[in-house]
């Protein structure tokens, strides 16, 4: 165990019904001060993992360590972990101040100290003048801030957040993302954050654990996750992605050749393939595809037929048929000198071998 691993999951399994595992053999180390996001579709096991860490669910198998100590038999209220819930879970019968005082009263902190801390916490989330209100009298965004302040006011070293921004509208959500990020940076707490929103995960996290089917598919920094997905689920789940299915026909030192099912042969970077003859899915980000590539610049050049154009302001999304796939997306920046495209016309597209990752043949 590394010195700075604050939380450790070792071989953790969880089942509710004794038949299917919601979390399968989870090994996860979370560093002190880190902002780690558990990302995945619903039912992927991310929330269960969070609840086991909080102490509301008990692992069926395996152990969880907090700061080097096993916490299997530590009840939730003794774990000293701050938590922000999906719908805030502010106590409706208490004022904002009483909500914030709750964890401090439990800890038998002196009255004067409580007042100071509440004042500081409310200042941190910019709600200094709303302390006497009840949660029902606050807007969604304000409630969110109170929930955040409450989870932090007793100065825990670890804070868990369970889709805390899910109920907010887009603009407010983006603003809160930044605020949470700032607070994290200023306080230096460790944050474990659960979300199903990949852009939120990429924006906020130091590292992201992508969950699917009870298993961490990839644990990496946001840019790694986007640029270098290790399997086709991650490639598909994070960002936009062109998929080309085919069969590996040849391997060489740094690349491989893949025969596309819809026709054509592509030079790709082997990432997760089982060898010559195996089926594979090629993953290619739309912004890495070039129009009319200069000769020699791209190892893969194909004819494409423009099917549809979607104007998005800063760029245009082009749907085209490439190698038999009619769902092939190309992002064309609306910069000076952008080519004039017409649906039905034929163009030439190309991409580099390194940008085209040969991954497992997912369904």
């Amino acid at each position: 165990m590394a010195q700075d691993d604050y939380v450790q999951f070792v071989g953790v399994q969880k089942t509710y019904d004794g038949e299917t595992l919601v979390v399968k053999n989870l090994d996860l180390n979370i560093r002190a001060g880190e902002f780690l996001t558990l990302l995945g579709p619903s039912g992927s096991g991310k929330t269960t993992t969070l609840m086991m860490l909080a102490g509301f669910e008990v692992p069926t198998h395996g152990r969880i360590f907090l700061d080097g100590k096993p916490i299997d038999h530590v009840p939730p209220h003794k774990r000293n972990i701050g938590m922000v819930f999906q719908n805030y879970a502010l106590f409706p019968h208490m004022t904002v101040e009483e909500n914030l005082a709750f964890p401090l009263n439990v800890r038998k902190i002196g009255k004067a100290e409580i007042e100071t801390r509440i004042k500081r916490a409310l200042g941190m989330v910019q709600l200094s003048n709303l302390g006497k209100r009840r949660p029902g009298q606050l807007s969604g965004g304000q409630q969110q801030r109170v929930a955040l302040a409450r989870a932090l006011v007793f100065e825990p070293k670890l804070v868990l957040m369970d889709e805390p921004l899910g109920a907010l509208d887009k603009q407010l959500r983006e603003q809160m993302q930044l605020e949470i990020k700032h607070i994290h940076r200023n306080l230096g707490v460790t944050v474990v954050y659960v979300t199903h929103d990949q852009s939120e995960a990429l924006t906020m996290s130091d590292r992201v654990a992508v969950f699917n089917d009870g298993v961490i598919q990839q644990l990496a920094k946001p840019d790694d996750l986007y640029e270098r997905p290790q399997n086709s689920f991650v490639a598909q789940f994070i960002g936009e992605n062109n998929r080309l299915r085919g069969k590996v026909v040849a391997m060489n030192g740094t690349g491989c050749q893949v025969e596309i099912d819809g026709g054509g042969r592509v030079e790709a970077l082997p990432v997760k393939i089982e060898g010559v003859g195996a089926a594979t899915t090629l993953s290619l980000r739309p912004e890495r595809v070039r129009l009319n590539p200069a000769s020699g610049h791209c190892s893969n050049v194909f004819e494409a037929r423009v099917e549809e154009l979607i104007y998005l302001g800063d760029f245009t999304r082009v749907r085209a048929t490439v190698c038999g796939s009619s769902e092939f997306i190309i992002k064309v920046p609306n910069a000076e000198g952008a080519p004039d495209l017409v649906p039905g016309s034929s163009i030439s597209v190309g991409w580099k071998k390194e940008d085209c990752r040969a991954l497992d043949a997912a369904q």
Partner: protein
Amino acid sequence: MTAIAENFGLDIAERDALKRRLRAVERGRRLRALALVLPLFLFILVSFVIPIGELLRNAVFDPSIRANMPQTVTALAAWDGKDLPDEAAFAALAADLAAANKAKTIALIGKRLNYELSGIRSKILVSGRKAAQLTQGPYKEAMIGIDKIWGERETWAVLKRAGATYTSFYVLDALDLGLDADGALTPTPAERAIYVTVFMRTLNISLTVTVATLLLGFPLAYLLATLPTRTSNLLMILVLLPFWTSLLVRTTAWFVLLQDNGTINDMLQALHLTSEPLPLIFSRFGTVVAMTHIQLPFTLLPIYSVMKTISPSYVRAGRSLGAGPFYAFWRIYFPLTVPGIAAGCLLTFILSLGYYITPALVGGPTDQMVSGIIERAMNSENNWGKASALGGILLFATLILYFIYNRLVGIDKIRLG
């Protein structure tokens, strides 16, 4: 355009026209809403407001003496009550009694006065028959000769009071009070004073049942609210079972269980826990058990439906903030269930006030509740004044309790689900 028009966008005439149009549109909607409420309103008026008004009026309004002894009532108007009334009053009495005897309304006079002067009923009937044969005065001697009750000041005092259209007799009687010959408030003789005791007992039993249903119902409601739906539905059926069994079946079941050689007593004696059968039935215990059984769902259901709406994340939040299981329950979960507790307890308390069949069947002699007395006054004794007075006092006491309750809990906090 004027400055005003610029400020408001419209000039005054235009604004008035706009308001008129708005009113026209809203009038139609208001009328439709009224039409929807009207049937309920009429129903409540006919089935509720009018009977309650009638009930309260009956408690103080009794024209039987004024209607059947008009001359005597007039003659007594000037009587100072210090001595026996004058000859004119006796003459009026003789005339009234003779007329009532002929019209067969004399029994109503006798019945009314008998409430206050026990045994006077037959004396009045006899006086009526004999007064019909009197043809000339002096009536004072003649009437006293017929029966010496007419020579007693108290008889006349009662007659004068009863002759007023509105009487305080029934209400005072229902509070174990009465008026003596001088019109002073006196308590009912101890051997007949019962109503205050019964009122207190009614409140006492209702309160006990309310507390019992709360103590039993709260944990059960919690269990029902947290169990998976299929299991909780099964349990819910058990809770609602008393609703689906007739009073007769339930009573028989309690008998089998609670009587001296019933299941429970047999078991206690077999285990040598008691040497003699415990008085489980025909006692306060039996009454409270039976009433609690029926009332449990009324207390439980509002609590249950409120608990259903409480997200488990509240308690989890409390736990994560450092509160132990009990502290989190007491400071977070419990306060959130108070609206349901308030509704359930109020419902059970008020419904309990109206019980009379169950206490009569499984209770002892000291468990009779006020509704039982009202029922008997109404149906058997035909004394609607007493029934109304007792009903009115019970209503009034309930409203006072409701008011106090509102101050303590806040009616706006009550929620049925």
